[in-house]
Structures are given as structure tokens and as C-alpha cells.
């Protein structure tokens, strides 16, 4: 038993959902209780997906246990096939169903459906989301991909992008563009956008594979190298240096020689050399996330921004060794943990000037008053932007430059802040001027602040009675200011000088629309 408060990764079947949801014509029948359907909202809310994930949950209840959960699974599986007519069916169990041992794979096979069924055995009590995604992708490829003649022109597959991946949607576009500019056809992208048919017919035709996200695609890449003789790239093209290395790797694998990728759209290199960026020099950063994004970020931070990396870490143990050795190279301790409190303690201890992390570190940063930029999943709805914003490739380098710089105080402004340290409204706790109310106070306890009290409180000639004031404090802090203003305007309008609880509610009713 391990006590967990916030987790970086979901259970392995959520990883399976990420793969299946990214694909076309594929459906997942998951033997699971009703509460597990929460996973749908990760996709429909965080990623704003406009369709339900292609997942059918059996939602067995206590009354079904022991009697006919297996039968229920078969019925759900059959009904899901009839309704959605997928070209391949993935079946598996969530943590609870794993305990009742109904064997979804065997049950699905017994239905004798006219499409391939791919059974998943994901050990829910040992492994996590990334493993689930990796294993699901591998099982799908192993079952469906067929050897094929290579394309006439040099081509590759891009492997690893899934639903709910950090900027996967845009990374794929950017890398595809770079490859096309370099004269290499993209044969197939998977799992994102691939159908079972594509995988069967096209996967084997590529000359080599691009392993975009090792967490998800490494197992599959190894398999394809062995079975289909497709070598794969090891450099993840996030950052300018990494993208250059990636291209030389591609050049070797394709035998095409010089790569002609159009670098004119890259601005981050000059932005970083320009004098305004001088103030980045030696800024102390702490980096935490999935191993791949941490590794690429560490290189960018050091070589492309001129920061000082003061600590790194990752939450996926599968990559612990590589993160530890990176830590040794950088001369810093490497933290490998899933415990968010440990990460918080490390940050508190190191007091970096910038955190590069996940949604969790964003919260740690908020609490400690340290700026943070998000570089890795898990992320929240605001880190899934509408605009094109890859991390990979040349445009990715531009995006990263902008994103990391955004929470920092800009060049000259920083000097002014130092000069006027003691100024009551212009001090270094006020934060960057381009960010609205960047409050260095910890969020906890915010509700008890009464700093939403207007300065001209007295001059308005209005008095808040005690009970009205108390009532006002019960209103959530983010609308409290508005409630106060409305009530005061209402009172002035009515010519009332003392605001009671009644007045507050009269005003509320008055403004209700």
C-alpha cells in the first residue's frame, strides 16, 4: 500500500484509451465498474474532444459479481461491435476486473467476431499509464502489421503520438513537414490517425521509423526493427540541437545525405543571442516531467537558453537509469519519484528561479511563488492551446523560447525592480508587469484575504454592517469583488448608507439575470 495524493500517471488502461482514442475504426471494450467512466472526461474536457472516446465499459455492479460478469462482458462486447462496427476490437480489464479474472480476451474470441480482437493484459497493480499506452500500441502492431515491400521512394513512419499527449497533435505536423522538406515521405503516422487497415497494409512499407516518443513507441520500434528490418531514430527532435542531431540521424538512415529542411522559420536561435536575453544567463531552473521531455528540456535549458540546471527528475521509473546518468552529467541530483510531495520538497529546497514541469509543478510553483512553464504531461486544459504550438522541430524551438520566457521578468524590468525594491507598489513581489495579478502569496488561505476591499471604501460614505461583511466573506473569493461592487452601487442608488445582510441580497436579486 502506498499513500498517494496527486498522481502523475493514471492506471494502465487509461494509456490504452489514449492509443485507441487516437486511432480510427478501433473500439475498446473495457471490463470495468461505472466509476471508471470518468476517464472519458479526460479526453472530452482536457483535450476538448468533440466525440466520446471509442470505449465501451461493462459497468458491472456488486449484484453481477460471482453470477454473470463474464456474460455481461460478452453482451457488451457484442453490442459494441454491432453498434460501432470497428475494424479491430481491443479488449481488456481495469483494476477491479483484473481481480475477478473473467479473461476478456478469451471471452471476446469466443464471440467469433469478423474483425481482429486484440486482448490486453495490463497489470494494474504494478504498472501505469505510459506502460499501458506502450503495451497497447505494441500489441496492436504485433497483431495487425504485416511484412510488405518497401516503398520505392525513401519513406518513414512516425510512431508514438496519442490522444492526451503533450502537444502530440502539433509535433506530428512539424516533424512531417521537416521530413517532407528533406525529401522523405511519411508513410504512416501511428497510433494517431491510423486505422487497423493502415497498420496492416502500410506499416511494413516504410524504410525506417521515427520514434517520436520513446515512452510510447520504443517497444514497438524495437519489434519492427527485428521483424521488418526497419531501423529507428533515437534522437527526439525537441530543441534546436536535438532537431539538428535528429536530421543527421535521418540522413544516415535514409542514405540521402544532406537534409534540406527550411530553417528560415527558426527564430529562437537569434532570439536567444539577442541582448535582451542576456538576463537569462545562469537563471536557475528545476526540471521535472516524463523522462523524454526532461532530457530534451535539460539540453535546451543549458545549451540554448544559457540557464543553469539545478535539479532534474522524472516520474516514470522505466527511464530512471537514463535520468540518473543525465543527472551525473549535469552534476545535479536526479529525483525519480511519483510522489508529488517529494518534488515539492526538492523545489523548496533548491529555490530555483524557474520551474519546468507538469501541471503538478505548476501548482507547486503557485504555492511557492516560483514561475513555472509546462513541458510535459500531465497537463491541464490551458496547456492544450487552440493555436499551432508544437514542441518538436524548428517551430517547436520558437514556441519553447516564448513559453519559457513568458513567466519570467523581462530584461530591463528586472533592473527597475531591483532599483525600487522598497517601493510599496513596485517591488519584486509584484511580479512581471505583463501578467495580471501574479500573486506571490500561496493560494491556500487566499479566501480569507480581504484585499478585494476598495481603497475608497470610506469615501463612498457606505458602512458595511458586521453581518453583511461576514456574509460577503462566504461568497467565493473570485466573485466577491463583484458582489461588493454591485451591492455598493445598489445601496447608493437606493440612497442607503448602511449595508445590511438584507441589502446584500436585495442587490443580488436586483442584478440577477
Amino acid at each position, binding site marked *: *500500500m502506498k499513500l498517494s495524493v496527486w498522481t502523475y500517471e493514471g492506471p494502465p488502461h487509461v494509456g490504452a484509451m489514449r492509443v485507441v482514442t487516437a486511432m480510427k475504426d478501433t473500439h475498446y471494450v473495457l471490463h470495468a465498474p461505472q466509476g471508471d467512466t470518468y476517464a472519458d*472526461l479526460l479526453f472530452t474536457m482536457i483535450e476538448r474532444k468533440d466525440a466520446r472516446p471509442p470505449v465501451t465499459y461493462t459497468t458491472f455492479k456488486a449484484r453481477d459479481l460471482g453470477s454473470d460478469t463474464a456474460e455481461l462482458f460478452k453482451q457488451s462486447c457484442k453490442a459494441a461491435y454491432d453498434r460501432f462496427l470497428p475494424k479491430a476490437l481491443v479488449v481488456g480489464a481495469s483494476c477491479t476486473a483484473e481481480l475477478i479474472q473473467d479473461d476478456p480476451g478469451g471471452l471476446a474470441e469466443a464471440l467469433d467476431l469478423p474483425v481482429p480482437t486484440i486482448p490486453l493484459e495490463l497489470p494494474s497493480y504494478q504498472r501505469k499509464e505510459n506502460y499501458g499506452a506502450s503495451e497497447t500500441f505494441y500489441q496492436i502492431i504485433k497483431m495487425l502489421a504485416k511484412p510488405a515491400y518497401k516503398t520505392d521512394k525513401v519513406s518513414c513512419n512516425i510512431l508514438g503520438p496519442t490522444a492526451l499527449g503533450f502537444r502530440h497533435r502539433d509535433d506530428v505536423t512539424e516533424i512531417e513537414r521537416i521530413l517532407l522538406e528533406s525529401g522523405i515521405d511519411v508513410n504512416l503516422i501511428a497510433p494517431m490517425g491510423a486505422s487497423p487497415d493502415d497498420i496492416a497494409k502500410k506499416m511494413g512499407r516504410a524504410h525506417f521509423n521515427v520514434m517520436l516518443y520513446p515512452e510510447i513507441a520504443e517497444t514497438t520500434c524495437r519489434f519492427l526493427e527485428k521483424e521488418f528490418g526497419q531501423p529507428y531514430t533515437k534522437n527526439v527532435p525537441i530543441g534546436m540541437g536535438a532537431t539538428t542531431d535528429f536530421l543527421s540521424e535521418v540522413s544516415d538512415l535514409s542514405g540521402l545525405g544532406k537534409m534540406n529542411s527550411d530553417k528560415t522559420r527558426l527564430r529562437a536561435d537569434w532570439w536567444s543571442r539577442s541582448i535582451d536575453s542576456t538576463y537569462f544567463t545562469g537563471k536557475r531552473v528545476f526540471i521535472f516531467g516524463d523522462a523524454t521531455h526532461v532530457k530534451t528540456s535539460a539540453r535546451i535549458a543549458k545549451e540554448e537558453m544559457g540557464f543553469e540546471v539545478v535539479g532534474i527528475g522524472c516520474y516514470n521509473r522505466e527511464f530512471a537509469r537514463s535520468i540518473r546518468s543525465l543527472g551525473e552529467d549535469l552534476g545535479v541530483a536526479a529525483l525519480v519519484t511519483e510522489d508529488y510531495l517529494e518534488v515539492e520538497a526538492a523545489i523548496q529546497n533548491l529555490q530555483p528561479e524557474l520551474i519546468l514541469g507538469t501541471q503538478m509543478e505548476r501548482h507547486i510553483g503557485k504555492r511557492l511563488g516560483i514561475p513555472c512553464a509546462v513541458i510535459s504531461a500531465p497537463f491541464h486544459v490551458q496547456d492544450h492551446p487552440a493555436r499551432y504550438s508544437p514542441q518538436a522541430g524548428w517551430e517547436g524551438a520558437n514556441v519553447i523560447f516564448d513559453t519559457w520566457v513568458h513567466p519570467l521578468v523581462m530584461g530591463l524590468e528586472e533592473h527597475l525592480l531591483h532599483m525600487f525594491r522598497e517601493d510599496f507598489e513596485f517591488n519584486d513581489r509584484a511580479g512581471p508587469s505583463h501578467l495580471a495579478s501574479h500573486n506571490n502569496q500561496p493560494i491556500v488561505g487566499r479566501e480569507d484575504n480581504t484585499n478585494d476591499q476598495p481603497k475608497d471604501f470610506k469615501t463612498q460614505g457606505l458602512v458595511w454592517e458586521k453581518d453583511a461583511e461576514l456574509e460577503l466573506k462566504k461568497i467565493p473569493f473570485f466573485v466577491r469583488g463583484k458582489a461588493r461592487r454591485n451591492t455598493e452601487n445598489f445601496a447608493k442608488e437606493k440612497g442607503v448608507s448602511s449595508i445590511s445582510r438584507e441589502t446584500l441580497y436585495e442587490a443580488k436579486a436586483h442584478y440577477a439575470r
Partner: protein
Amino acid sequence: MNISSPLHAKSGCSDTPILKERGQNEVFCGLTGIIWLHRKIQDAFFLVVGSRTCAHLLQSAAGVMIFAEPRFGTAILEEKDLAGMADAQEELNSQVEKLLDRRPEIKQLFLVGSCPSEVIKLDLSRAAERLTLKYAPTVRVLSYSGSGIETTFTQGEDACLASMVKTLERTEASELVLVGALPDIVEDQFLDILKQLGIENVSTFPSRTKSTAPRVGENVKFILCQPFLGDTCEALQDRGASHITAPFPFGEEGTTLWLKAIAKAYNVDSSVFEKVTEAPRNRAKKALEGVSNKLSGRSVFFFPDSQLEIPLARFLVRECGMKALEVGSPYINKKIVMPDLEMLPEGPVISEGQDVDSQLDRCRKVKPDLTICGMGLANPLEAEGLATKWSIELVFSPVHGYEQAGDLAALFYRPIKRRELLKV
């Protein structure tokens, strides 16, 4: 014992045959209740004994993680716990010990069962008894199930409150208890009105801390603030308290009838009742006026979620002039929602349970002007052209009582208004 509602004539939807559905349920499990219960009960910690899925559910449903170290957590079962029972009980002991060392402000600890802990038959009630003995009198340890195989969404709160009933002290005194976790602001408004009505000794359940818990006995009456508290209701009745039945306090009408049922049980003079409620009633009516004409004539379809569906449909139909097409509820406890059912005019399909795909078919067919559903369904339905309101907001925001009547209607109007506003 039941103190009957002011409504006697059977009418409305009380005899409408219920469409019972079995199939995929797209609803949270009872663990979700922890998200509001841990804010309400300020000296409690909720320790879920479950899997990574349970931890992930809590985190995803909470949506925001403003609390660095919230008063809930999940003891995640690992392979070695699944092997032998003795082991798991010991593991639990040591987790609890670590936790209470770290958080000395905790006075009540709930061990919350999940699907995995139930399937492996981990006996949390035994663990709770043992731990209570160990940590008494400082910390009281209770257990309940929030598992998805036993409970649906708000039933988690029911299970939690029901588990506390046995700990309530006995009293011979005449007292009134308001049952159900309400936002503080709403709770205080109700307490204030009851005080003005001259009703004394009123307490709330759950109380904000262990030391202010209500007492229970033959002279205690209670009223439910939420329709999903069936087990808690029975447990209180088993301890001699009597249940005041009433429609639920949504909207001006619902709130008035709810308060009236209490007033009647305490023989409050009707002139006093009129006098005390007049101003807030008028405010509620006024606030509703602005919104209800915008909702009037529009149709509404409820997917099952919190069991608030029937009372809310009653409010939307009677006070906002909407037309209910289907009112789905995960579970319908007629004993509790009968007053609301009787007042809900005939017409809508009343469904219980869920087969989500066929319900979606029904919904698409009738094309409601507004669909109330969970977050997993809302964006997909919007993309298909239906206006939606996510139901979880109805559980998380202050919507009961007079002063919130206008807000409640506005919640339903917002998605419609937005569609009218947008030119994209």
C-alpha cells in the same frame, strides 16, 4: 416515523411507469463525494483504500487542485497486498499511523472502500473498529463504501453520513436536524430563517467538526436537504428520529414548501411563516422572473447523474416554464422524491438507471433545447449541436434556497444564452 408532506392528492408523475434501464452507466462512483465532503467536514480525512484508478478519478473529478495537501488520499493497493489479507490490514495500520502523525489536526478518519477493496473482501469496518480503539478519544475512525459496484456518485455522501449516524449521541430533547452537506452560505441562510420562525435547537448533519455533531432520539425531527440520502434517512429513523417529508428546496416554490413542512411539524403560526418568508420569497420571485421567461417554453432532457434530477425538473417545469422530455435518475427512491414527483406535471419519460448509448439515441431523436449531462458527454453533444449543462456544477455550487433561486435558473440559461451570443 414519517411526518407527511402537505400534499396528499396523488398526481403529476407519481404514477408514471418508470423506464428501467440496464446497460453502460456513464456516471461517477461514490468516491466523488469526497471532493465536497472533505471541504464540509473540516476535521476529517478521507482515506480511500483502492487502486491507482480511484486516485486518478478523485484527481480528475476534482479538476482543480488548489489544495496542496488535501484532506483526502488513496492508499493504493499493490500486488503484495492482494496476495494475503493479514498483510493488508497491517499495511493499513501503518499507513494510518503515518498519516495521523503527519496531520495531527485530523479528528475523524474515514476509511473509504472501493471496488478493489470490496472484491478482495478487505474488511474496512473491522479495521475502523480496531483503529478507533487505538486512537480514541482523539480520533474517531469510520468506514463506508464509495465503490462503483455499490454506489453511484452522490450515494457516496449517503454512505458516509449513514456511517456516522451510529456515532451520534442520544438525546431526549426536541431538536431539528438539517441533513445533507450544503455550502456554508446556504446552510446559514436556512438556519437564519428557522431561527426567525422561532424554531430552536437546529443543527446540521454533517457538522463542520466532530464536536458540533447533532444528537438523535425520539424527539428529534429531521429533514433532508438532498434527495440522495435514502440510507441516512433510514438510519436516522432507526434511531428514533422522525423524517419530515417535503419537496426539495429548489426555487421559490420548493423552498417555501420545504420550510412549510418544517413549520407545520413545529406548529409555527402561519402568519409568522408568511411574515418571515415574505421578503426572501419576493426576492426569489423577482430574481427568477428575469431568467424564467428566457427558459420558458424550451425543452430539457436529463441524463442520470446525482439524483437531483426529479426535484430540478420540477423546478424547471413549474417555476421556469420548461418542458421536460426525459428525466433520468441513477436511482429513484420513491419514498423520498414522491412529493417532487407528484408536483412534476405528467409528460416526461421518467427513467432509472442507464444504457448510455440508447439514451443518447433517444436524446438525439427528441433534440432537446437543453441537455443536462456529465462532463464525458457534454462536449460531444455540443459538437452535435445540442446545448448542454454539466450536471456536476449542480452538486458543487450553491443552488438551494431562496437567495439562490435566480442563480439556479441562470445556470441552466447560461449555455442557451451563450449559443445565442456566439457568432462562430
